């Protein structure tokens, strides 16, 4: 298998002494080139921490993360990141937000006019792909949440990153917008041939998007199990109602519930109902 990302014995501790929390313990995982991997798990399982470590925003306490066989050291343009919200620059128009990376590069290198042209061509193509052409001169706070996330994705894709890291990017969107975004991001992953690592708390989303769903467990944060998704590569929304899909969803939800150590106390609820009567 052609590995894009190799996580080896990753260990991450927050804090010191008795109060320290083990966010990641002995995490080993290989992610293939062009793979779409989704991470789910109860809160505190370390899925976001792992994503941030791959992005270089956090560093591991021990172990390593390799991209194309080279250990990563801090953030890099090869690994773009899309956050849940508040990551766009409200003082820049949609187009200027998308071209932000280009602005950084323009400040450093001597760009030929061909470079600049290629970059604006790329920006225009991304605007088109994301359905943003009609709002190119608008400011982010004039857009809906769904449109803002389209801008964030377009901005992340501009420098042609090989890896796209997504941290609950659709968590704040309504259900209908989210469905549209799911099909859009699947389309993007095929078109751009990007390796995508996607963290979510929504199991349905994880199965629909992922080729593999990685379930993580809390205290200490670790990989619990991995579910390969057997759906046809060309997804469509009706698949969410197929028995295959529902069975897998059930299995994963059960697994998360078991690892979280949290469950509904039916006895207590019944006692309270009796008292109320």
């Amino acid at each position, binding site marked *: 298998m052609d590995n894009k990302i190799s996580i080896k014995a990753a260990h991450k501790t927050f804090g010191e002494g008795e109060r320290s929390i083990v966010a990641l313990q002995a995490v080993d995982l290989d992610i293939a080139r062009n793979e779409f991997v989704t991470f789910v798990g109860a809160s505190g399982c370390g899925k976001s921490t792992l994503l941030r470590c791959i992005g270089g925003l956090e560093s591991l306490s021990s172990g390593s993360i390799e991209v194309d066989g080279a250990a990563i050291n801090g953030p890099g343009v090869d690994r773009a990141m899309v956050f849940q919200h508040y990551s766009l620059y409200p003082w820049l128009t949609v187009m200027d937000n998308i071209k*932000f990376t280009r602005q950084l590069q323009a400040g450093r290198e001597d760009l030929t006019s061909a470079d600049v042209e290629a970059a604006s061509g790329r920006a225009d193509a991304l605007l088109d792909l994301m359905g943003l052409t009609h709002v190119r001169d608008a400011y982010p706070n004039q857009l809906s949440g769904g449109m803002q996330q389209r801008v964030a994705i377009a901005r992340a894709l501009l420098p042609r990153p090989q890896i796209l890291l997504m941290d609950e990017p659709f968590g704040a969107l309504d259900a209908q917008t989210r469905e549209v975004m799911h099909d859009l991001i699947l389309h993007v992953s095929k078109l751009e041939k990007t390796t995508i690592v996607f963290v979510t708390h929504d199991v349905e989303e994880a199965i629909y998007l992922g080729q593999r769903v990685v379930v993580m467990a809390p205290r200490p944060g670790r990989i619990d199990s991995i579910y390969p998704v057997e759906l046809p590569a060309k997804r469509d929304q009706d698949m969410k109602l197929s028995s295959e899909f529902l069975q897998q969803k059930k299995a994963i939800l059960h697994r998360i519930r078991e690892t979280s150590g949290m469950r509904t106390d039916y006895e207590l609820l019944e006692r309270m109902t009796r008292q109320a009567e």
Partner: protein
Amino acid sequence: MSSHHKIVTSWNSLWVIRGHLSSRTYLMFALFGMLVPLAAWWGVSVSGWMDKVFMPGPADVLSRTYVWFKEDDLMHDVWISTYRVIAGFSLSAVLAIPLGLMIGTYRPVQAMLEPLTDFIRYMPAVAFIPLVMLWVGIDESSKIAIIFIGTFFQMVLMVAEDVRRVPITQIEAAQTMGANRREIVSLVIVPSAKPALLDTLRVTMGWAWTYLVVAELVAANSGLGYSILRAQRFMQTDKIFAGIILIGLIGLAIDQLFRWLHRKNFPWMYKK
């Protein structure tokens, strides 16, 4: 629906919690709020309840302002006071903004300077006046120094807070797009904090006027604050009123100027 009922309904709709007013209704309430105290003042002064020496009416204050303008060089007082405020305030801003930016951005700078600034902030600026007079003398620079002491330390802390309020995701997004430290400061933190910084300047400008009056009451021979103090010696209550109202009006004008700058520079905040 009876017309009486309609009036009651529309009256009630004005008092919705955090409700909205049409701009016409808003203006009416604003005018009402301004005119009532003015009318009350005028009423008290003509009723004869209070001696005119202690409570001059609006007309007395207006005519005194005119005399001041004609015979006592009002414009010089306005000019010299405005100059002192702007000089002290600008000196403060020029030093406080970069320092606050550093404190809000880099932890070691924060650890080094914030507790110290917090400590000095609680020392009343007015208490520094004798020291300032000993060190700087009683020329222009002493007034500027007092305004500086009064505004600088507050300003540093407020700027640092503005900078810290820049959402961390905006910074992290820039990091993942390959921005280096310098680029994050100049392309993300500064533009992101700018609107809040301008508001901080607007608020501290008000304090600068307060310290101006303090400085002029103690050590000056010109300016609006000085004129107010001298008017007290000659029992010119109308001139005291005139001076206070003038400072209020200049302050209001500067405040509006800052608000206009805000709308002009940050159009993206006003588009919805």
